[in-house]
């Protein structure tokens, strides 16, 4: 076998190159398709929560960004103690972050506005696209800082460092303005302070109106996740923000379809190239095949010889193709996302199987043609 392959070095090299070209592109696409879900999920998670928890039997209309997601009554709450369970669920690793929220209506300089008590650090981590000016609220124990939306800031003419007064049920609370932000949505009309402060102000200790959660949609099924959350937290209903979730899923599906079509196309082209190379190689060896037939070689043994050669070409082409493919995928990833792609060991056996499969399939027609060679003709040298 080694002698046969080394005797036809140039043909073998051409066949290996055909496999490498096809497989490297397929391997790159495979690596990209493995990573694209996570990478785009992370990117898309810049656009906010994709699941929310609301109190059971909620009646007050609430919204997030440009989306409406139900109502809640003033008397309906989620128990804050239950919310810690979110971090113990099996999907906790795929949770970007979550934000417990307590809403109330306040007066700020004579205007009605929505006050949101939140964990500010978590709020920013699930909404990295929000443009924050100032330091925001640095820690969850901070009782002095407040951040206001751009519209309120403009109306009040407030600047960073100013003291703002918030009135709630006849009491006035003073805060330092440590940040303003612009979201282009309803948050621009809200005031944000630490959750703990808001709970004390409104005498709703340990209670929440909502929890916003952001999961990597490419890695978890949001609807299954919502069901699990609802089961684990008895005081809450879990709702998937379907517009966000569906557009993410649809985006990922489209990208993965494009990748699959490209990979199949590339592999088909590679299979044609390998078929042509193997056909030429067998044509050159028709005297040898004629001799084998004359010596009494049955089709099984002749096929075995050629398919073994094809497998060797497939393995060499597959391994080289994998290495080139990972390099190619990394280059693409660096250009697009500024991070190198993580080579996944699972790609190696998949790529090898693809490479062997391509060379095997590409060999079927030429080998069948070879077996139909008439030895009396080839041995005569015709």
């Amino acid at each position: 076998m080694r002698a046969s392959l080394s005797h036809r070095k140039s043909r073998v090299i051409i066949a290996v190159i055909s496999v490498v070209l096809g497989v490297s592109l397929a391997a790159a696409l495979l690596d990209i398709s493995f990573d694209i879900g996570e990478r785009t999920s992370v990117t898309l998670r810049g656009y906010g929560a994709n699941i929310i928890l609301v109190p059971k039997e909620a009646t007050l209309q609430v919204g997030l960004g440009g989306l409406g997601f139900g109502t809640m009554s003033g008397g309906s709450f989620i128990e804050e103690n239950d919310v810690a369970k979110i971090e113990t669920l099996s999907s906790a690793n795929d949770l970007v972050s979550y934000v417990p929220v307590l809403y109330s209506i306040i007066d700020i300089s004579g205007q009605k506005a929505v006050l949101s008590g939140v964990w500010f650090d978590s709020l920013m981590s699930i909404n990295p696209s929000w443009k924050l000016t100032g330091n925001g609220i640095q820690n969850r124990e901070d009782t002095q800082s407040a951040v206001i939306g751009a519209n309120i800031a403009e109306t009040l003419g407030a600047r960073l460092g100013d003291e703002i007064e918030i009135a709630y049920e006849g009491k006035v609370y003073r805060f330092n303005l440590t940040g303003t932000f612009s979201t282009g949505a309803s948050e621009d009309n809200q005031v944000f302070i630490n959750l703990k402060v808001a709970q004390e102000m409104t005498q709703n200790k340990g209670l929440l109106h909502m929890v916003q959660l952001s999961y990597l949609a490419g890695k978890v099924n949001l609807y299954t996740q919502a069901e699990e959350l609802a089961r684990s937290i008895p005081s809450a209903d879990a709702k998937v923000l379907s517009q966000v979730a569906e557009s993410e899923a649809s985006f990922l599906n489209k990208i993965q379809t494009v990748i699959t079509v490209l990979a199949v196309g590339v592999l088909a082209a590679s299979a044609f190239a390998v078929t042509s190379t193997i056909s030429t190689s067998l044509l050159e060896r028709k005297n040898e095949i004629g001799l084998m037939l004359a010596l009494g070689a049955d089709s099984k043994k002749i096929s075995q010889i050629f398919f073994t050669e094809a497998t060797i070409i497939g393995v060499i082409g597959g391994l080289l193709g994998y290495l080139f493919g990972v390099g190619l995928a990394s280059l693409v990833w660096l250009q697009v996302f500024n991070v190198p792609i993580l080579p996944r060991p699972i790609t190696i056996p998949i790529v090898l199987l693809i490479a062997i499969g391509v060379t095997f399939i590409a060999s079927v027609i030429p080998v069948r043609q070879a077996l139909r060679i008439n030895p009396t003709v080839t041995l005569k040298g015709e």
Partner: protein
Amino acid sequence: MELKNISKLYTEKVRALDNVSLTFDKGEWLTILGPSGSGKSTLLNIIGGLDKPNEGYAFVDGFNITQLSQSDLTKFRREHVGFVFQQFHLVPYLTATENVMLAQYFHSIADEEEAATALKNLGLGHRLNHLPSQLSSGELQRVCIARALINEPKVLLADEPTGNLDHQNECTVLDIFKQLNQKGLTIIIVTHNPEIANLGNFAIRLEHGKVVADSQR
């Protein structure tokens, strides 16, 4: 071995063999003579199971080879026949030993020692690991004979085995054939050379696909 009314037509007008009949016994040496295009090689190919006649039947070593399926014919060639060709038809990238082992591989199991012994018996002990390109024509033909004999065939079929050899190598090869025949191997040789006919038990002469003469010694 019995051939009865064998005809081979390539087209309606081209008859390679025309109603050829002949009978001979195990252990005999048959020489097939005739000019180019007379049907000698076609007859040899039919006896060896490489080709099938359009008419007639052929019994070789107890098999009606005209009735065998392609896979049975392949098995017949593997187990009953050894071929020696004028053009040698050795695989160029395999050594002498490996070329002999190739026939073993298709028959059963390749055995390097056995292949080397077969070559040594034909005086090629010093050429075991040589490639065909490193051997003389006489040596090439001896490798070809070793390959034909390695699976202990019942019939040795040789198509112009000395056609590419000088006189000295021709004598060496014919001597080997004589010894093999004396040991009981059936030999059928196709040749232009009438002198070779004198070595066998009998000879036939073909012209235009017909037997025009046969001589029993």
